[in-house]
């Protein structure tokens, strides 16, 4: 790997760092706008003015916003996530198990979605314009055009109402045995997998088709190579970069998707925790959850960018 590539990648990482700073500022500013005096809310309507003032002092609420921002940022950097306003628990404790649940959901979804999406993306490119391609494409456009909650409601209708294979909306609390785990995960995973596969199929297909326009594929065609051979041996290796890029970008849709899916299926993950925190105006908890989401999103899109740089010499200018 030459020095130019290294410096480009380092530049991209530096950019990501700057972006994290700006994002953290936006997250902080946005949560600061939440209405109501925190001290007043914590102490309730009956609190005396002195008590409220005392608490404000203790929580450093009277400090300038920029100072509180820097203090919060320093805390984050040292792994101190702060304390929840709502129940005074350490945020790290609140988040721990929830984060593991969400990551499990994301991991299972990825394992299910990526192979299916790549297979469909590559084969539709292979049989571009045929009935198979047009059918898959129509489905994909349909899925991309509708809200996630509609995919979720359709999944419930099909698997719970008509086929009666799976429970409808509740997340099973008494999970015992493999079958129950499967049943509990099935619906959220199906929904999320459908949503991100659609993006992935579209982008993978586009990437393969792009390489099919290259002179060397035409050469292969003129040599008399079969269609699968042209795609698998000539086009695909050259499309690996864009495809990995597409996978990383599609996975970033998980971040938005889990917010809806965890809410609709009552899944005990970090997105549900955050939606609940918004309802209770629990600032530190919202800030931390938002930062976790933004960070994972940023990691995925930065990874996608770096793969693109590594795989495409023309981006190295």
């Amino acid at each position, binding site marked *: 790997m030459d020095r130019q590539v290294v410096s480009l990648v380092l530049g991209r990482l530096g950019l990501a760092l700057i972006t994290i700073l*700006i994002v953290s500022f936006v997250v902080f500013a946005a949560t600061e706008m939440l209405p109501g005096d925190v001290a007043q809310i914590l102490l309730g309507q009956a609190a005396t003015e002195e008590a409220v003032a005392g608490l404000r002092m203790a929580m450093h609420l009277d400090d300038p916003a920029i100072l509180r921002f820097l203090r919060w940022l320093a805390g984050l950097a040292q792994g101190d996530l702060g304390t929840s306003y709502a129940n005074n628990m350490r945020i790290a404790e609140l988040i721990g198990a929830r984060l593991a649940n969400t990551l499990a959901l994301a991991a299972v979804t990825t394992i299910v979605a990526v192979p299916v999406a790549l297979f469909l993306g590559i084969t539709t490119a292979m049989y571009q314009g045929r009935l198979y391609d047009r059918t898959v494409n129509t489905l994909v456009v349909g899925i991309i055009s509708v809200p996630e*909650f509609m995919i979720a409601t359709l999944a419930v209708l099909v698997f*719970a109402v008509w086929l009666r294979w799976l429970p409808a909306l509740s997340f099973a609390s008494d999970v015992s045995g493999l079958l129950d785990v499967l049943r509990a995960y099935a619906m959220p995973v199906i929904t999320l997998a459908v949503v991100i596969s659609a993006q992935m199929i579209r982008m993978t297909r586009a990437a393969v088709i792009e390489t099919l326009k290259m002179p060397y594929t035409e050469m292969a065609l003129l040599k008399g190579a079969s269609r699968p051979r042209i795609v698998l041996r000539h086009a695909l290796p050259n499309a690996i970069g864009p495809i990995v890029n597409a996978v990383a970008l599609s996975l970033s849709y998980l971040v938005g998707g889990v917010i809806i899916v965890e809410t609709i299926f009552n899944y005990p993950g970090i997105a549900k925790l955050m939606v609940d925190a918004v309802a209770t105006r629990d600032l530190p908890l919202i800030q931390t959850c*938002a930062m976790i989401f933004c960070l994972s999103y940023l990691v995925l899109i930065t990874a996608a960018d770096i793969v693109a740089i590594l795989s495409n010499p023309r981006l190295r200018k």
Partner: protein
Amino acid sequence: MAITFPTTPRRIGYRFNAVGAVALAVILFWAVIALVGPWLTPYPPGEIVDFDYFGPMSAQFWLGTDYLGRDILSRILAGARYTVGISLAAVIIAVTAGVVLGMTAAVIGGWLDTVLSRLLDALNSIPSKLFGLVVVAGLGSSIPVLIGTLAVIYTPGAYRFARALAVNVNTMDFVAVARARGEGTPYLIGQELLPNILGPVLADLGLRFVFIVLLLSGLSFLGLGVQPPNADWGSLVRENIGGLPFGAPAVLMPSLAIASLTISVNLLIDNLPTKIRDRSA
């Protein structure tokens, strides 16, 4: 819009293929409903008209009734103006701001371009649903707040798109000639760049409209959109989600309304006459 449109005469009237024509018809249908929907409702949308809840489709209530026994058809017709209106306002603001900023960055370049691009890229790396959730929760949900938030979320994308197009046009000879004539930035933007990127920008506006409808529906679904007793289509789904285990039309019909609108816009863009689409080349 603050932008001046090109005054050069252009033949109006494009030939659409069948899919594009159907899609256009559906879009126009919802546009008309958004304007006159409240006068077409068979029942007052806020009134309980059925003693039963989650009623099935019937001659009396075409699309069934909701969790309180209100007429779903009436509520969808009345909700169209929220979904379509808010999204349209937001997308126009977002694209106008994005395109003006993008062209300015392309023409002026230098540090302004760098700063704008970095800042908007950073804004773009906040997941849209998350941003909407936090900001709308913070400011409290009202229609201006929704429009503003949605517009802010989709400005960076419009900026990126317009800037990329404008940078290409900016290197063309006729722009250099205009510069040599001593024309100012506003002239370059309005007379030289905009007419040459307008087609793709309009297609982009359609795509962004779809994203905004989806995000608005998602926010409404989370309870942060249009507030009761009014309801856009996303709120209708949220209200009636309890009917899902019985497959009540009250859940399905608003979802179908959203889908018909967004799928039509996507299909229309995919089937736009090449005359409109490919002016960037």
